[in-house]
Every structure is written in C-alpha cells, then in structure tokens.
C-alpha cells in the first residue's frame, strides 16, 4: 500500500472519495504490469534455460525421448567431456593471454590521453578527442582489408610466429584491440576527468610534481570507479570478440575461445547436449561478470551515453 502511494506522490493531492477508486485501479494495473513483466522475463530466460536443460541431459535419454520431454536423469558429465575432448583449457589460456594485456594497456593508454586533453589545453584537444571517439564507432570491416595486408607486411621474430609476420599472432590481436578500444575508453575517461577540479593538479604542480606524477598519483586514483566500470565492460567486449580473431588468426590452436567455438562445433561437439555444455562453459566468464560485476558493467555502458 505505502509503496503505491509513495510511488506517485501527486496522487495524495486528489480528493479522499476518489482515492479509493484510484487505488483499486492502481492495484489492478500493478497486477497487469507484473504479469506482463514476468511473462517477458520468462521468454527472455527461455533460450538460456533451454541450453542449460539440454546440457544436463544424456545423449541416450534425448535420442530416445527427444529434448522436449521430462528428463530421466540429469548429469554434469557433458561439461567434463566438452572440457577435455575439445581441449578447452588451451583456448581459455589463449583468451587470457590476449585479454589481460589488451585490457591493461587500453586503460593505461586511454587514461593517458584523457589526462592530456582534459588537464592541458593544446590546440588540437577537441580534434584529438573526436578522432578517438569516431575511430571507435567505425565498423571493423571498414579497416580490416588494409589492416590484414599491413599485418602481413610487418615482420616479427621467428620465436613469435614461424611465418615471421604479425598476421596470425596473438600480439597482433592484442594491438588491434588496444588501438580500437582506446577510442571508447578515452572518450569516457575524459568525460570523467573533466569533473575533477583543476585545482588538484595545480596544487600538485605547485608542490613540484611533474606531469607524470600528477597523472599517476593525483588523477588516476580518483578515476578508480570509472576505471573499474570500464575494465569490466572492456573485459567482456574483448572476451566476446569474434571478428578480429576470425580474420587475423589463421592457426586454429592460437584462437581465443569465443572464435574457437565455431571451429570446435561439428569437430568435437558432435551432439547437441555437448554443444550446449560447451557453449555454456564458454559463456561462464560473461555470466560471472553478470552476477558479480553487474553494477560496474551497467555503469560502464551508460557512462558513455550520459555524462558523469
């Protein structure tokens, strides 16, 4: 009761006789609203629940009774099988080797640029910021054809890649992630740093701190909330990348997990239960972000669209 009246404070102003009628109508609309939302949420969860359901059943059970049946037994064995037969640990390690450096350097680079453009006025501040922001909005396919050629021309030492080109190396993947994602992060961080009073860095300067110390010891610690949000978001995005890896990595064993899944399908994940289990295993880091870091993720997404 209190919640409904609190919800729309202006209703309290209406006459006492009307209030009863209005409350009854409100309650009816609330029930309708909740019914609608619950229905939508069930539809929204259906694909995932269906995947979980399929992954927990045995091949014998589903081939005899179909998937749309009451399960005879539920088992976790599909997960173990998917994990070992498709060599998932190798691909998870690849993802880790790509995501972690890309994430750290992206945040470092974008905070450096954001610091530069918000704390000091060069002539090209706005242009620079626009270049970064626009670069992040380009469809990846616009740059891929020349980038692919460029990567084939750039030599790397043999221990990194026996073909001695940047193409087909995880380093190349890390570099394009950094270059591409720096755009978005610079934009978000510069918005954030602008809210930090100039007096702070000025005071540090008066005390004799150089530019780098002003950045590292004054501004960066204050950006921790924004950095946390961006780290969560960027982790998800780099982890979820499919396109860069499909084009720039040619050796199947070097692929990160999300793009490897499309190769593994049909080759190792032969039945649907196994494919469902494999897909869920790959989705686990994303689901951890969802359950544990929801606030940071949503914060990161909306930081870019609304200010502050």
């Amino acid at each position: 009761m209190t919640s409904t009246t609190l919800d729309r404070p202006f209703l309290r102003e209406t006459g006492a006789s009307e209030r009863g009628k209005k409350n009854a109508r409100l309650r009816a609309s609330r029930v309708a609203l909740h019914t609608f939302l619950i229905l939508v949420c069930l539809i929204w969860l259906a694909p995932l629940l269906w995947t979980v359901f399929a992954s927990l059943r045995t091949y014998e059970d589903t081939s005899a009774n179909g998937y749309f049946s009451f399960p005879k037994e539920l088992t976790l064995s599909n997960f173990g099988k998917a994990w070992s037969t498709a060599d998932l640990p190798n691909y998870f390690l690849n993802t880790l080797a790509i995501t972690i450096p890309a994430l750290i350097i992206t945040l470092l680079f974008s905070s450096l640029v954001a610091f530069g453009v918000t704390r000091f006025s060069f002539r090209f501040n706005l242009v620079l910021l626009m270049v970064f922001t626009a670069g992040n909005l380009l469809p990846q396919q616009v740059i891929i054809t020349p980038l692919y050629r460029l990567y084939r021309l750039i030599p790397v030492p043999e221990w990194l890649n026996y073909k001695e080109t940047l193409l087909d190396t995880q380093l190349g993947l890390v570099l394009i992630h950094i270059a591409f994602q720096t755009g978005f992060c610079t934009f978000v961080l510069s918005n954030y740093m602008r809210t930090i009073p100039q007096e702070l860095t000025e005071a540090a300067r008066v005390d004799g701190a150089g530019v780098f110390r002003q950045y590292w010891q004054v501004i960066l610690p204050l950006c921790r909330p924004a950095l946390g949000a961006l780290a969560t978001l960027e982790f998800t995005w780099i982890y979820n990348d499919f396109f860069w890896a499909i084009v720039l990595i040619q050796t199947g064993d070097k692929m990160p997990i999300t793009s490897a899944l499309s190769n593994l399908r049909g080759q190792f994940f032969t039945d649907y239960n196994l494919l469902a289990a494999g897909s869920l295993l790959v989705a686990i880091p994303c689901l951890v972000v969802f359950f544990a870091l929801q606030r940071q993720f949503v914060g990161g997404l909306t930081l870019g669209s609304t200010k502050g």
Partner: protein
Amino acid sequence: MTVLQNVPRTDPTPAPRRGRRRATALSGTDRIVLMLMVGIPTVLHLALVWVPTLSSIVLSFSSWDGIGDLSTIKFVGVQNYIDIFTAYPRFWPAVQHNLIWLAFLLVLPTSFGLLLAVLLDRQLKGTRIYQSILYLPVVLALAMVGFIWQLMYEPNLGLVNNVLGIAQSSPVDWLGDSDINIYAVLVAAGWKHTGYVMLLYLAGLKSFDPSLKEAAALDGANGWQTFWKVTFPVLKPINVIVLVITVIEGLRAFDIVYAINRGRNGLELVSVLITDNIIGESSRIGWGSALAVILLVISLGFIITYLVQVFRREDRT
C-alpha cells in the same frame, strides 16, 4: 581555497598573462613527458585504425591481388564500384539484408526497450530483478547468441518448434529456409539489443527531473500525454545515442550470422562479403576496399551525428 584565490590579486604581475601561462607553462621535461603520454597511444590508434581507413579509400580505386609488392597496384578509377553495383550478384541481396536489419533493430528492439525502461523506471517491487533478467543477454557474445539460438531453432529438437507443436508433424527450418532465416536471426539479435537499449533509456530516465512529470500531472495530463509531451522530448539526447548505436550495430552485424552459417543462404550481409574477400580464396584488395568504403560512407553520417550530439553537450557544461 579563498586564500589561494586572493593571492594573484595582491600579486603585481598582470592577471591575464598569468592566466595564459598557467595553462601552457610547462618545463622542458614535462613537455616531453606529456608529448609521449599523449603521443604513443595516438600514434597506435592512428596507425591501426585511421591509416587503414584512409588506405581503404585509396585502394578502392585500384586493382591489386595483394601478393605482389606495392608497385603492382594498378589504379582503375571507379571500376570496382561499377562492378560491385552491376555485376556482383551477392551485393544487392546483402544490402537488402542490411536494410532489413537496420529497420528491424530500429523499430522493434528499440521501442520495446524504451517501453520496458519506462515500465521499470519506478519504485516497482522486483524492478531490479526484472532489469537484471532483461539485460542478461547483453553480456553474451553475439557469436554465443548465435549458438544458443541455434539450439532454440533446431527443427526437430529445438524449443521453438516444440512449443508451437510442429516439431514432429511439419517442422519449420527457421535457420535453413532462406526466406525466413534473416528474421529468425533478427529475433536473436533483438534479444540482445533490447536489453542494451533498455539500459541506455533507464540511465536517461534516472537523470530526468521528476518535478516535470508532477507538473504535467497537476495540469491534468494523463500518463500517455505526459510521456509523449514531457518525458520523450527531454530524452532527445538519449534518443540520438540509441539511434546511432543501433545503426552502427546494424552495420557491424557479422558475428551472429557468421557463427550460424558463415553468412550464406539468405544471411548475406555487406560485412560478410568483405570478410569473405579477405579469408576466401580469391582475395582482391581493391574490391574488398570498395565494399568497405560503401560501408564507411553509410556509417559516416551517423558517426558525425553522434559527434555533434555528444560534443555539443560538452560545450554546454
């Protein structure tokens, strides 16, 4: 604070010069450090994002097989574009699919996301749980969304046909039938996009001044009128951002169709044609670049809209 502000006034040096020096006066080391701090990331970004973009434009007027060195590049004018427009059977279907993609995303997930945001932006019991469930697909990779929905659409075993009761009698091959598979994929893409749009609108609504709504209610406006005449106009900046993000997502769309069937048989998109040209057997650099430039030209209008919207707001504050 006050002490600090008073100091310059007692200082004999002229105030305006001081103000200017404050912004630019940097010691030599500081200047070099700052240049490195901003320069290194900028060089990397320019080299890997903007140089390829500009090369795309130049190479699109050329013919190059990519095997010989740069001197084997022949410039052929707009021949690549003419060939693409007139003699490439996969091009127009791909453009048509991209347009369907854009229209669908702009109409259904966007308006549904807005509706959900408006419904959930109040002190409703369980609103957090509803929000969480609806945004769950946003954390998943689009490729993963493709895999998950393949399980849903499987003709005999999938949930969709089983719920419709046609799995055994006359199953619909949602992803295999080239007349309908684009819409089936769009439902899956919309599953993810709706949550994203909802989050953006929820953030916009949170910063909305509730007294505006109360004023409208006191003036006798009903909920519908309040929304269209008061809330929606105030949300204009968010609308622009949602529009641009949706269009860019629509033009970038690749992962989901590539994960499902490598973008063939009714699921061709411009992005797939570009990728096929690179990792396919006959790689033609000029050709792929021309396709990329077509994509660039379409997206540029929206990118500029976004920049204008975002940086105009910046000036105001």
